[in-house]
C-alpha cells in the first residue's frame, strides 16, 4: 500500500482500515525460533563438471573457525508473474529459514517487466540467491557452521526441471545470465533446488492475497 502514498485514493484508505481490522483479529502472532532440524530430503550433487568445471563455493579466507551447533538453510521462493495489472510487473517472494526459524524475507515488486513466468521465476531465483549468499557470508563471519547447501524450494516446475539440463536454450540475455548465475551456484553446491507445491510453498504468502483458510494454514507454520 505504501506504493500509493504519494497520491492515495479513498479505496486505498479503506484497504488500510482492512489491514488494521485484520491485525485486530490477529494481534497475538509471534515468530518462534525453532532450533530443530527441518526434514529436508538429501539430494545428490548434480554433475555439471562439463559445463561449470569444478566450481566451488568461496569460503571467506578471514572467517573465524566455525564453532557450536550447525544450521541448515532452507529458502522458499515464489513469484507472481505479471501480478501488477497496470505495469504488468511481477512480484518476488523469498523466505529464508535457518533450521526451522524464519530469519530473512522479502516481498517486493520486480524492477523490470518479464514476458514469461519462467523469466519472473528466474528473477526471483537470482534475488533469492543474493540473499542466500549474503546470509551465508554473514553466518560464516560469525563463526556459525553451515550444513550442506541451502535447500531452495521453488514452485515453478520448468525452473526446477531445467536443473537437469544446463545446456537448455534460452533466448533472452537477461534470463540467460540469471539462469547461469543460479545454476553455477547449484553446481557449486551452494543451493539444492527442489519443487514445492504451491499449497505448501510458504513464499506464496509474500506474493499473493489468499483466502482465509489457506492463509491460516500457511501462516500457521511460521506464526504462533
Amino acid at each position, binding site marked *: 500500500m505504501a*506504493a500509493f502514498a504519494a497520491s492515495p485514493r479513498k479505496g486505498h484508505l479503506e484497504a488500510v482500515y482492512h489491514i488494521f*481490522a485484520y491485525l485486530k483479529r490477529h494481534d497475538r502472532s509471534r515468530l518462534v525460533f525453532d532450533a530443530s532440524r527441518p526434514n529436508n530430503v538429501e539430494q545428490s550433487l548434480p554433475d555439471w563438471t562439463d559445463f561449470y568445471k569444478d566450481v566451488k563455493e568461496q569460503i571467506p579466507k578471514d572467517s573465524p573457525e566455525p*564453532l557450536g551447533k550447525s544450521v541448515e538453510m532452507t529458502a522458499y521462493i515464489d513469484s507472481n508473474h505479471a501480478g501488477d495489472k497496470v*505495469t504488468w510487473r511481477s512480484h518476488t517472494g523469498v523466505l529464508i529459514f535457518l533450521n526451522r526459524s524464519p530469519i530473512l524475507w522479502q516481498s517486493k515488486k520486480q524492477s523490470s517487466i518479464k514476458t514469461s513466468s519462467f523469466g519472473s521465476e528466474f528473477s526471483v531465483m537470482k534475488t533469492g540467491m543474493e540473499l542466500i549468499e549474503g546470509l551465508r557470508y554473514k553466518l560464516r563471519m560469525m563463526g556459525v557452521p553451515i550444513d550442506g547447501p541451502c535447500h531452495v524450494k521453488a514452485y515453478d516446475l520448468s525452473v526446477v526441471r531445467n536443473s537437469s539440463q544446463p545446456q537448455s536454450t534460452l533466448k533472452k540475455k537477461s534470463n540467460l545470465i540469471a539462469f547461469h548465475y543460479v545454476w553455477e551456484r547449484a553446481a557449486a553446491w551452494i543451493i539444492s533446488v527442489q519443487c514445492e507445491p504451491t499449497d505448501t510453498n510458504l513464499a506464496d504468502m509474500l506474493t499473493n492475497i489468499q483466502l482465509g483458510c489457506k492463509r491460516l494454514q500457511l501462516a500457521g507454520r511460521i506464526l504462533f
Partner: protein
Amino acid sequence: MASSWRSFLAQVLAEDLNFTMCRADNDIWFKPAKKANGTSYYIYVLVCTDDILCVAENPKAILDKLDQHFLLKPESRGKPKVYLGAEIGTYVFEKQPGKSYWCMGSQAYIKESVKNDETHLQKQHRELKSKVSSPLPINYSPELDATPLCD
C-alpha cells in the same frame, strides 16, 4: 556523541572483554568460549546503540563486566523481555512438551496502533470490520483502484 559512544563501547568490548567485531556486521561481537560440558562455542554480544543483547551460557558474567563500565538498569539485566521494541518470550510446542524455544512478537505495538486507528475511526462514527481473515480483501488490486483521490 554517537560516534564517541560507539568507539567507547567498542574499546570496552575489544580490550577489556576480548571480543572480536564481526566483519560482516559491525554490531555483532563474539569470542570463543567453552561450555560447562566442554564443547567450544561462541559467545555473542549484539549491540544496537544502547540496546545490548548477550547470547551465552552464562550471560550474567558478561553483563557484570559491562556493568563495571556502564550503568545498566538492574531490571534490564535478566532474561530479555524486550529487544528493539519487540517482545521476547518462550514458546512450547504442543508436540514437544518440556522443550521451550525463544519467540518474538510485537503485540504491544500492534495493540497500540490498532487502538489509534480505532480512535481515529470513532471520530467519523465508524469502526473496524470484524471477521477479517486476510490483510487485503480477496481479489483487491490496489493499482486498479479508481475511487476518488483522498483530500
